[in-house]
């Protein structure tokens, strides 16, 4: 019997699990895919929003501003790359400058510090590669960037190091309510828990329906992105947004925490959680990126992808106990600025909701620190040599583009939460994320996975299930 079962291994569920693991509680995370961070937490913009966008007094505004302030500390503890690079909402007309003024006022009302509108030469001094048609920008100094899947994986790994349990390939298909909740997976497994937290993202409506809660509806919005080579990582310094208009927010042009340049996302309503990219979507990203920065080096694209974001019909976060189900907590509709808000949401759910259901005692030996999966290339020569002496596998570079060592790959396969396939290794270590996109390292990474797992190369998958890399031996 678990005290708390969290459904959904995204960034919200992950940070919540970590928070719970700091108490003397038996907690677990249920994830339907074969790895964590497989939904919207692996394919979003990775922006730590300042908090000027959300409507004052909304949950979005509250948790955004709180989460923004917490993010640096969380990232440091978990060894996650984070940069306080600042953001800039760019205006291209007098009319849009008026919107910037409104945003600034709204931000101040939300408690955002350091907002300033810059004009003309000052604007181009900040961002020389902005199109010359830009006239002003709202500078938000507290804006930042973080790697969303790295944050999710690290939070869950840290929680597991502190005693939390992870069940992957556990798709909750039935929930029975008695003295506690019993959750059944599609494979016939079951676990029971006193408290259940629904952080299932795109699946959160389905999960709520399983306990007869029909209080909200989830819609899906797909965002397509194009990622550029690290050579273009310094093309802009800040995250550049278009001024929101009645037609929508437009796309962003931003460096990523890993040093690439990210363009996107589009925003298309979709009926299914399918992350295919489209010709029109990718074209519109290119067209808009060129509007923002006419010299954007599109020839440096190394990949394109999309993520499907879940939003609720309430158009604000839903963070509350289910009305008809005591001990069943809803954390749903966590659309943008959900990533930024996640650390604050996790605190709130524990401190304000779970504390009313369970007795919470701090774990004395809780260790909030996690060593990053990807770290070696940033060390000094002396530090590297010390590690290689103790473990020669750190002297073997496997991914040449990102300079990832065999030691890091083995670590990703053996430490919480263990990677089990090519994409899992990629998200933890960046092996295969560089300019050759795994062209060189893929066979080697596959061999290391096979060796560590003690299976044949033919069993290695890209992302679980039927995604095997190879179909059989040669003649």
């Amino acid at each position: 019997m678990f005290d708390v079962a969290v459904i959904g291994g995204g960034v919200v569920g992950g940070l919540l699990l970590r928070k719970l693991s700091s108490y003397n509680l038996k907690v677990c995370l249920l994830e339907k895919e074969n790895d964590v961070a497989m939904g919207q937490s692996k394919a979003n913009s990775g922006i730590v929003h300042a908090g000027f966008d959300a409507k004052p007094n909304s949950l979005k505004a509250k948790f955004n501003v709180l989460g923004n302030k917490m993010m640096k500390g969380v990232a440091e503890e978990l060894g996650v790359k984070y940069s306080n690079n600042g953001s800039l909402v760019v205006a291209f007309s007098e009319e849009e400058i008026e919107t910037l003024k409104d945003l600034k006022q709204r931000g101040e009302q939300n408690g955002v510090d350091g907002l300033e509108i810059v004009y003309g030469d000052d604007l181009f001094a900040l961002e020389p590669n902005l199109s010359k048609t830009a006239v002003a920008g709202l500078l938000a100094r507290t804006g930042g960037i973080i790697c969303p899947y790295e944050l999710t994986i690290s939070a869950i790994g840290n929680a597991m190091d502190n005693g939390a349990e992870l069940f992957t390939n556990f798709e909750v298909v039935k929930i029975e309510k008695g003295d506690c909740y019993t959750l059944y997976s599609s494979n016939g497994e079951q676990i029971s828990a006193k408290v259940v937290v629904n952080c299932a993202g795109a699946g959160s409506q389905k999960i709520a329906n399983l306990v007869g809660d029909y209080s909200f509806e989830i819609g899906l919005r797909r965002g397509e992105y194009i990622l550029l080579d690290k050579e273009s990582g310094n093309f802009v310094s800040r995250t550049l947004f278009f001024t929101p208009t009645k037609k929508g927010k437009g796309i962003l042009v931003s460096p990523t925490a890993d040093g690439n340049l990210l363009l996107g996302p589009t925003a298309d309503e979709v009926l299914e959680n399918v992350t295919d990219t489209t010709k029109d979507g990718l074209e519109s990203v290119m067209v808009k990126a060129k509007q923002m920065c006419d010299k954007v080096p599109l020839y440096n694209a190394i990949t394109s992808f999309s993520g499907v974001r879940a939003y609720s019909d309430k158009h604000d976060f839903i963070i509350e106990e289910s009305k008809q189900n005591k001990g069943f907590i809803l954390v749903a509709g966590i659309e943008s600025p959900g990533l930024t808000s996640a650390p604050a949401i996790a605190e709130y759910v524990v401190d304000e909701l779970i504390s009313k259901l369970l007795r919470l005692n701090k774990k004395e030996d809780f260790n909030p620190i996690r060593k990053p999966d990807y770290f070696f290339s940033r060390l000094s020569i002396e530090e590297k040599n010390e590690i290689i002496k103790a473990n020669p596998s750190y002297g073997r570079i496997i991914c040449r583009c990102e300079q990832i060592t065999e030691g890091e790959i083995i670590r990703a396969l053996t430490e919480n939460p263990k990677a089990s396939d090519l994409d899992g290794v990629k998200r933890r270590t960046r092996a295969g994320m560089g300019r050759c996109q795994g062209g060189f390292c893929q066979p080697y990474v596959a061999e290391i996975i096979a060796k560590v797992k003690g299976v044949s190369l033919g069993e290695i998958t890209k992302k679980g299930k039927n995604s095997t890399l190879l179909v059989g031996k040669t003649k």
Partner: protein
Amino acid sequence: MRNCDIVIIGGGPAGLAAAVSAYDNGCKDILILERDDILGGILNQCIHNGFGLTRFKESMTGPEYAQRFITEVKNRNIPVKLNTTVLSLTNDKIVTAINDVDGVFQVKAKAVILAMGCRERSKGALNIAGARPAGIYSAGTAQKFVNCKGWLPGKNVVILGSGDIGLIMARRMTLEGAKVHAVCEIMPHSSGLKRNIVQCLNDFDIPLYLSHTITRIDGKDRVIGVEISQVDQNRRAIKGTEKYIKCDTVLFSVGLIPENELSKGAGVELSLGTKGAVVYQNRETSLSGVFACGNVLQVHDLVDFVSEESELAGKSASDYVLNGEKIKNSIDCQAKDGVSYVLPQKIDTLKSGDVTLYFRVKGVYKNCKVVVKDGENTLLSIKKRIVAPGEMERVILKEDKIKSLSSSVQVSVEVD
């Protein structure tokens, strides 16, 4: 930090030939750094034949061709560090490398030869719509799996790009029992060698779709099909020409890119045409004492020419170390009408010897003339029945012409 006369980055065909040549020209203190656990580079996975026809007048497999040079290196006891990746190169020729025995170490070189080869352009660079399931490989990755690991990546294959590796893999996969349903080429002409079109596609009845590209990839876990479309002159897909092909594997053979990250880090000037270093006829780059050869300099069609070029670079590096040879009088060498690049990009008119100009044309031209000019003065005019982008062209400028160059050398294609 240890010192070394010549550090060669890369132990593939370019690095091996450069090492032997540098040694034979008098410089004996050489170190080859190779990231793989064997010498030979990409030749090790090229088990098809056809290598060495020009140089050795016999047809060899890739590993056989490599072995010729590995033996020469071994006979000379030239030191090699395997499993060693170079992390950086500075403009004062300090090489930082890593392996599991020495850890991270630095070597200060008098001369450096860049011989890192090239990499395949990835699918990601093309922004193709659709899913990202398993079953998408660059042709070279598939070749590695099949020829070195003994595993087949798929059974029903569509290949995008008619580069040589794509063509070779079309045949290879067929021989292994897979069905290659189509090779699509976005250009109206193939970018591979004519002999590979004949021997790898035509002989196996594999259809080549010119002016076609893949417009969507379908599948969730594993590829289940692709949509291909015809393209217009601007290489944009034409609506209404879509065709769906069921397959479990897509191979990409969409170009090779010289792997110049280390060169960039050192501040070596690169050419937009070749994506490799800008070099003089002795293969010296913009950084004095840093030389480049093989596919890191320009993507060759034949390894025979890689060896030839690398011997030149090896000799030049040796001359640089032993005699302190410097560039004296530089003039530019430019690609003009119909020509996409010319190498070398600079000529030192005071160096002795003939200069071979290597170039590629932009399209297929029939009954044309290759014209080399010095300013307004025509130096050479050579009739050609046909030239194509897939085949590298070369013309020789004699020493006496080099000595009298006054303006800049320009290479163009003229069609009557």
